[in-house]
């Protein structure tokens, strides 16, 4: 499953004036790639991820996920796409505070529907094992460390077996060692499950783990290298 961006322009209103966040981005990310969008703060990384993640639409140009142009989709279809095809990992983990670790991971499966309780249980436990948290299933998120929370978030992002996982600065709120571990985990999952990973970061130590680095500056791709 590929992600194709053609001449993508995104403007934001800032008070009375418009600010251009992305200036005609052209980018193709192939299935199974482990890509980072790198660049300083405000270069347009998050905007780019939002567009790929169907959470925003481009003013001009197109974003296509597996050949499907997302700009043309309704809100419902976009949500459906996010649920079935995409997985999200956030900088601040964004776990639902009132739910347990298990319930947080199970939530996307419940939203998706069509699975029995035992099937869900199996999937959730499998994922928790992969992220090394099977013993924390019953804990609430506030009882976990930052790294553990991000692992839960990774498990939640992967539980629906998405084709593409988008991660917005997944290590920004973690110390460097934990951050390294998280990136390692993502890499392993990428290698084992062939899931496409696209993550943004401005941390050189994190960026060097990526197999492809797309560097942005002022809303433009200034470098695109594959290792």
């Amino acid at each position, binding site marked *: 499953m590929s992600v194709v961006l053609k001449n993508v322009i995104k403007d934001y209103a800032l008070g009375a004036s418009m600010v251009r966040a992305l200036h005609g981005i052209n980018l193709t990310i192939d299935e199974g790639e482990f890509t980072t969008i790198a660049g300083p703060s405000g270069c347009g990384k998050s905007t780019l991820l939002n567009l790929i993640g169907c959470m925003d639409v481009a003013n001009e140009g197109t974003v296509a996920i597996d050949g499907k142009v997302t700009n043309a989709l309704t809100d419902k279809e976009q949500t459906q796409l996010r649920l079935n095809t995409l997985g999200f990992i956030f900088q*601040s983990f964004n776990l639902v505070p009132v739910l347990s670790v298990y319930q947080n991971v199970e939530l996307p499966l*419940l939203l998706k529907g069509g699975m029995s309780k035992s099937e869900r249980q199996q999937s959730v436990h499998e994922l928790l094992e992969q992220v090394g948290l099977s013993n924390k299933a019953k804990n609430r998120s506030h009882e976990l460390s930052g790294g553990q929370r991000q692992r839960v978030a990774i498990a939640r992002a992967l539980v629906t077996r998405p084709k593409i996982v988008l991660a917005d600065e997944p290590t920004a709120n973690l110390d460097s060692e934990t951050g390294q571990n998280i990136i390692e985990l993502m890499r392993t999952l990428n290698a084992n499950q062939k899931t496409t990973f696209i993550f943004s970061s401005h941390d050189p130590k994190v960026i060097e783990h990526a197999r492809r680095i797309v560097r942005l500056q002022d809303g433009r791709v200034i470098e695109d290298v594959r290792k």
Partner: protein
Amino acid sequence: MFEELKVLILVAVRNLALHKVKSMVVGGILFFGSFLVVFGLSILGSVESTMSQSIIGSVAGHLQIYSADARDSLALFGSGFFGRDDLGEINKFEDVKAEAMKHSNVKEIVPLGFENALLARGNLLDDLFEKFRATVNSGEQKEIQLLKESVKSNLLNVKSDLQNELKITSIPEEINKQIADIDIALSDDFWLGLQTDPESTLLFLESRIAPLSGEKEPIYLRYMGTNPDQFAQVFSKFKVIEGTNIPSGERGILLSKRIYENQIKNIVARGFDGLYRGKVIQRKKIADDVTLKTLASDLPKQYLEVSIYLTGENRDSVSRSLRSFLKSDSLETEELIKQFLSVTDDNFTERFDYFYNNIAPSIRLYPFRVGDIINLRSYTRSGFLKTVPLKIHGLYEFSGLESSDLAGAFNFVDLVSYRELYGRMSSEGRKELEALQSEVDIQRVSEDSIEDALFGEDTVIETRSESQTAQQASLAQGFNLSFARTATENYDPKELNSGLVINAAVILNNPRRIQSTLNDLTGQFEKAGLRLQVVDWKQASGTLGQLVSVIRAVLLVAVGIILIVAMAIINNAIMMTTLERTKEIGTLRAIGAQRGFILRMFCIETLTIGLLATLTGAMAAVSLLVYLGQTGIAAPSDFVSFLFGGPRLYPTFSFDLVLLAPVTVAVLALIFTLYPAYMASKVSPATAMQDRE
């Protein structure tokens, strides 16, 4: 779907637990709203039911019929305005009855008419002088001597009152003249006259001295003319408790036990009764309660109402007994009585018992009793003061409403006497008048031709003198002096079913069909050309009937305000929550939750807290109602006891209300959640990406 619901409920419950203060505030208001609706409406429903029984079962019946030409509205329990209501007249009750009875739902129709009368009570010395005259006529010297002393002692009291009055009066000459009269009556020479010219002595006392003690407060009696037999059959709460009902075909009055006890009984005894009710039954303290304090401080001032009845040996024995009871050395009976009547919290119970055991048997507790004849005075429609003597056949009360002044507000007289007081002549009276007119050869002169008759060409002196006689005759009709029936004179019971009435009570077979029957009867009367209006018991009872509706409206407005506040708070709370939880909502949207999921999440949160709070509120109300249903709510006043249909209200509740009220409140809360929930559902999934931590 079910799994999703489970998650939604779980999220809802946990969120409610997480935001405890918000949940407590919203839940508390909803709890209170639901409690108020269930409790308030149940109490009101119960009051309405008991009050309707009180009103329907006492005098109103289910429907009331009265003239369409009435200028005022029928208000059986008072309109709240002063003055005499103009309710028009139903001239031929027989036509109304015939027409009403055609309706299958009409069980009975009772003729009625109500009015106010004045019952003069004479003055304090009247009673004493009346007794004195009888004793003088009997010639019993010992008794005369004792009574003479009693008269003298009372004269001294009146004199002392007048001397006090002299200090503040602006007409000292008048008072001095009155004191001089008393001095005459106190002189030995005056009493020598009792041997030589007893009539002059008695007349002097009765005409010059008696008025000085002042008129007793007159009694205002509200009376209702009806068919006594039929009334007793139809109104289930009506109960004769002493004597008999007014027998068929006989004239008379049936007094309300309540009025008899509270207005007619000796004022000192009433004072004791009032204090007993307050102190012993209601457990109040004389020292703390304004009403009781006033009653207690008035008692010693009313000593004359006791001492006046103490004559001869009675006076001596009561004095002796009081001296030992009070451990007093005073020789003055009046002084002893004054001392005795000074009651306090400490001595009341003892004195109450003493009064009824030792003093009450020696005085006149009631100015008249069952079997006596009283003169009922009332103004006729043409403005004449009319007096009709009526025998008191008995005392009545309404079962369950014994302590209610409103229920016991009426005294019943037979319709024939009512009509006479109203100024309408009975058939016998009319015949009598006609016989007299023909005897003195009066020509009947119509109003139109009166000028011709008086000043026309053919007018001669004799005719004028005849007109004067006619005038006197018509005056006699007004005053009913010459034709007044005696109190024992009978009448044909058929007269009760025809002729003039003011209103009529209709009793229905099926009270549930009250509104349709009301409409039917209105239509029937219109068709039959009878100018009548039909109203239900609520309207007929005057402001009282509307009371429950007014209270209900006030309660609903209060509940409405509470709910509006609650809804505003809920709306606001969810708006705040939405702001607080934007990130959570954004995340849910980002990981694939549709807008509907977010909407449902907020609605279920509101429904959870809403149903939990409102059902608990309803249950709390039900628990209180069940408890009160067993113990009852005491009526705090006589008026409320009428509303309660007795001294205590045993409230009931309906399951419909208990279920409907909380669900309605919860649904209302849900409706007010929709907008903020909709706003929440519009939170962009991109919000999840915006890091604010």
